[in-house]
């Protein structure tokens, strides 16, 4: 690994400028560089509180809806026989899918040494950690007997794909949290050094005594590299296992061998869209235009386009195979999606997941910040609908015709959905108030170390005047 200049990332001594920082003013004589990244943490506007209040209200409304459901039972939902699963399971799959934004993308970019990752990894990883809670939460909300959750540990059966989910998702949650936390340590140390009182104590505790010594850096780099490698198979397994919940049954249009990769692709696809949205909001709210540049959006947009096409490939394969086989029970579900009651959702999904992203993102001129945001909104909606059109139509069209039925969520379910989204956004906002949403030290590292390394690396790819290349770092 590269050798770092001593004290490169060391912060100034705490005593030097405490009060100024607390007042939120840029301290005189401090490096103005990257101060914009600390500003959201140290300075809060009324807009934040207003937005926070609105989101809290929605989240509380959702919590209230859940209490209604807890009191009266799942009867307050629109669920029925045969539609035993509905919006909660849709949300579970959707949220777990979104969670692939972070860890997986950031890990892949890290391993690939994509230098443009530096300003986006943090925001991606936060999405992952927070959204997993809502993924798990929706499973708990869906349970008829949440009070018996412990039975899963007490009587857990590994033959059940749901147990695979429990293991996989909890591992993913732990892994992602660690993977979020590790690169956060140097930034926490920065904040530790710039705050006082309670906040100072809070950051001191979390900074784990980070002083930025070369040894500490070495350890951090190793740990991050290990986690980046470890987290990828976990992430892939998570959504594979989520798909297995459906694919392991013999229900029409669930029982499919491509569901594993299909779900993983969909997850990354929706994750990138969510990341673009998060970045766009952070960029405009916190004025981080210098850090989240159009190039980031353009690159992510390209990635989104690739995933869109990949997703389309899987979808096409899945539906063509079903259609060509024309088994009646499968075709009942198929037609329900293509031209039946689920057609509006299905075709909106196709439009949102393929047509809109392709039109916008395949053209460099429209692959702007705005363009990618529009595409991402479409993809997010489309991917939610994709989960919906996978979960519900198969249940609505069971093998024995007598049990057929329709499902539409009630206010309780919509409220809980809204509450989840609001609570997630709120937690995300709170995170940006506690920690820099763009990794400061990684930006600095990029500026001070990586530029040279990249030049070196690129040079190493090229023939260099007859010299035998042996210097790749």
């Amino acid at each position: 690994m590269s050798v770092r200049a001593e004290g490169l990332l060391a912060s100034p001594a705490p005593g030097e400028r405490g009060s100024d920082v607390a007042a939120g003013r840029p301290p005189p004589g401090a490096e103005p560089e990257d101060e914009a990244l600390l500003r959201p943490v140290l300075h809060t506007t009324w807009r934040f509180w207003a937005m926070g209040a609105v989101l809290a209200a929605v989240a509380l409304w959702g919590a209230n809806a859940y209490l209604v459901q807890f009191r009266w039972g799942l009867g307050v939902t629109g669920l029925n026989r045969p539609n035993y699963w509905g919006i909660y399971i849709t949300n579970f799959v959707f949220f777990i899918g979104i969670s692939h934004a972070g860890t997986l993308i950031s890990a892949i970019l890290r391993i690939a040494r994509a230098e443009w990752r530096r300003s986006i990894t943090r925001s991606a990883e936060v999405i992952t950690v927070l959204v997993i809670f809502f993924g798990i939460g929706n499973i708990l909300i869906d349970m008829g007997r949440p009070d018996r959750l412990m039975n899963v540990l007490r009587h857990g059966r590994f033959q059940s794909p749901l147990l695979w989910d429990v293991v996989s998702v909890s591992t993913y949650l732990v892994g992602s949290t660690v993977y979020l936390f590790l690169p956060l340590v140097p930034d926490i140390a920065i904040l530790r050094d710039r705050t006082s009182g309670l906040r100072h104590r809070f950051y001191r505790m979390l900074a784990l005594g980070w002083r930025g010594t070369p040894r500490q850096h070495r350890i951090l780099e190793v740990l991050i590299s290990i986690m980046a490698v470890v987290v990828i198979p976990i992430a892939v397994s998570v959504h594979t296992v989520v798909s297995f919940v459906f694919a392991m049954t013999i229900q029409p249009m669930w029982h499919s061998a491509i569901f594993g990769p299909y779900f993983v692709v969909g997850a990354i696809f929706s994750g990138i869209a969510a990341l673009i949205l998060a970045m766009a909001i952070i960029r405009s709210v916190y004025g981080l235009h210098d850090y989240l540049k159009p190039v980031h959006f353009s690159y992510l947009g390209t990635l989104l386009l690739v995933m869109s096409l990949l997703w389309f490939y899987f979808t096409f394969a899945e539906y063509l195979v079903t259609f060509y086989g024309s088994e009646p029970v499968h075709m009942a579900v198929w037609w329900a999606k293509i031209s039946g009651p689920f057609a509006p959702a299905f075709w909106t999904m196709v439009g949102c997941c393929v047509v809109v992203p392709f039109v916008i993102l395949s053209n460099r001129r429209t692959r702007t910040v705005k363009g990618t945001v529009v595409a991402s909104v479409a993809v997010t909606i489309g991917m939610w609908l994709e989960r919906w059109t996978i979960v519900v139509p198969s249940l609505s069209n069971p093998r024995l015709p007598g049990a057929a039925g329709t499902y539409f969520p009630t206010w309780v379910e919509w409220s809980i959905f809204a509450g989840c989204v609001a609570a997630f956004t709120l937690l995300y906002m709170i995170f940006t108030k506690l920690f820099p949403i763009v990794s400061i030290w990684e930006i600095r590292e990029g500026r001070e170390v990586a530029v040279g390394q990249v030049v070196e690396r690129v040079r190493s790819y090229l023939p260099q005047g007859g010299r035998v290349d042996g210097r790749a770092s």
Partner: protein
Amino acid sequence: MSSKGPVMTLRRREFLKGVSVAAAAAGCAPLLASCGRPARASAARRAEPPPRGAPESWVVSTCGACPGGCGIRARVVAGRVVGIAGNPLHPVNRGGLCPLGLAGAHALYHPDRVRGPLLRTGANGSGELRAATWDEALRVLTGRLGDLRGRGLSHTVALVDGTRGLSRQVAARFLAAYGSPHHLGGRPWNDLGPSEPLRAMQGVESAAAYDVENAAFVLAFGSGWLEGSASPVAAARAYAIARRGRKAARVRVVHVEPRLSVSAARADEWIPLVPGTEGILALGLMHMVLREGLESREVTEERSSGFEPLRAIVLRDFHPDAVSERTGVPVATIIRVARQFASTRPAVAIGDDRNGPGAQSVATGMAIHALNAAVGAVHAPGGVLAPLPVPLDPLPPAPADEVAERGRAFPSLAAARRPGGDLASLQAWLEGGGGHPVHLLVAYGSDPVTTLGGGEPARAAIRRVPFLVSFSSFLDETARQADLVLPNHTYLERWQDDPTFTSRGFAVLGVRQPVSKPRHDTRDAAEVLAEVGRGVGGPVREALPWRSFADVVRLSTRGIHRSGRGALFDVPEAEAWVVTMETNGWRASSFGSFDEFWESLKARGGWWDPVYDFGERGRVLRTPGRKLDFAPLARTLQPGGTPGSLAIAAPPAPVDGHPLRLHLYPLLAAFGDSQGPLPWVQDVLGHELGQTWTAWVELAPSDAAILGIEDGAQVRVESAGGSLEARAKVYAGVRPGVLAMPVGPGGAPGATCGRALAAQAGALATLRTAGGEPVEGDVFVRVRRA
């Protein structure tokens, strides 16, 4: 909707409690939402089953949920009826039971039961009732009756009787001694009473039994005989035996009905036809039978009278082409079915002997009976039988005084014999067609308003009676507008005899005994009549001297004991032995002393006599010359007759703009004895069409497309006489051009559990033909989106 207030507050309280508990658990204060709880959370409560190990017994009795007369065994634990199963010894049901009977305990514990006598407080027919004591209620009734009798107006009292057996005799005695001729039949819709064709052509007052068990070919006309007959369990059992439960070959069943009912679906062949033309088809089949010489010569030439005129008319008028034109049944089908029917022995044609709206006319019934007779299927194995009566000791003739003699001498309303039965006569009478007024009407085991089809015309007609008394255990349509409600025990709380018969014509007596103590302040209706009689005094007092109806039942069974015939209920295997003994002139059973006999009778559930003597022609043919008489049918078809539904020449023309013909059919397990709406039964009725808990009408997909009506749409059905609203069911099993609608008395609006098919019944009475006659035969309707 008046009960909404308190219900809401209770709900909210519960809800708030629930939320606060949950909020405390969650450690946050949630926003309160006032909706989302289950609709029934407040009205209902969690119930605890009786403790384990509590004393348990099985009590044998007879079901009274419908007129079927099945034997039941009630499981009683700690005094609670916790289950009802069929009595395996009972020859009618042999352990099977229908949904209605199985849910019987829920009628006993139904929250909507009348808990004690009620007196009207508001205006006549207002339905405002207050609780009263029995003393007060009986004083009011005794006073009224005594007053009318004192003024020589005893003949202005009428009693609508839905019971049978001894309770019916008690009512008859009461009226005879009191001095009224108006003992009117008020049987529930699917009850089986005396068959009109048998009365007309055989001269007997007897129900018709169809010996399906022994038939090789069954031709069923009209509405579903499996679901709508008087004893659905017995019909189903006979069907199953004929299909798979006998040595003889599997029966072939052909079903003729405008709609693919459950019976039609279970048949080997379904022949859809124009509603109300079953009689014409029967005569068309007879035409082919006669033309091909397939009739039973023995019957037509020796053992009947009046056949030749009928033959002439049938051969002249009922040519397959004409019949096909009128019924919509292809000529080839008519020819084929006629040949099958006449050449398969034994074959039987089943008429629809149901009562009330949608029933077949007497003329149609006679046509079907004539078809049976022509092929020798009357009083023959596998044919139409006149079941044997139960040899109960009859009550002695009622004493009479001068008032009684005078009152009895008035012509009875029941003599009118209108197509709609006694109740139709009553309605017409009340609407101004009658002679003297009716001052007091007693609904005894009956619900005349519902049986008349419910709805405003029926209610209004009954409201014309100044004083209306109901013995109903539930607030049925009649009780709701009564001046006095004297709630009877439910059938699980009372004594009763239940004389009935099997499909093979065997006499059966089921004993009904209480399986539960009375739950509420109710009394046995027959005992109440006796008590009222004591209050009125004179011959009425003498006529009804007993205090306990159980004694009446017990003493009447002395007749059976004395006869020595038949046997107590026993396992099926015992039947052959009884038959062997009896047909060889021995007594099959040793009944022992009467007390022993009575105890065994109660323990086994009843008595039967598994013998039907086909030689005994005098019993089933009371006509002059002991011959089956085709003349009544011929008379209706001759010039000057009133062919009604058999009029082949002049098909009824649709009223302007009313393109669809109405077909009314009974639902499986339709409510019999007024029971209140049982949720379990509501959940079953119409389930085969996915139409439970609601009022619906069915129409063919082609008609629905023309009318622009989608499945599930709310529609308004209009006839020249009235209209109703219902949900549309687009059903491929309906003949195009027909609107099919189920009938069955429903639950009361505002019932605490179980809601209503009531709209069916309620709106029915408004669906009348242009002439104002009750629904029967050809009614034309139009349908549009509501």
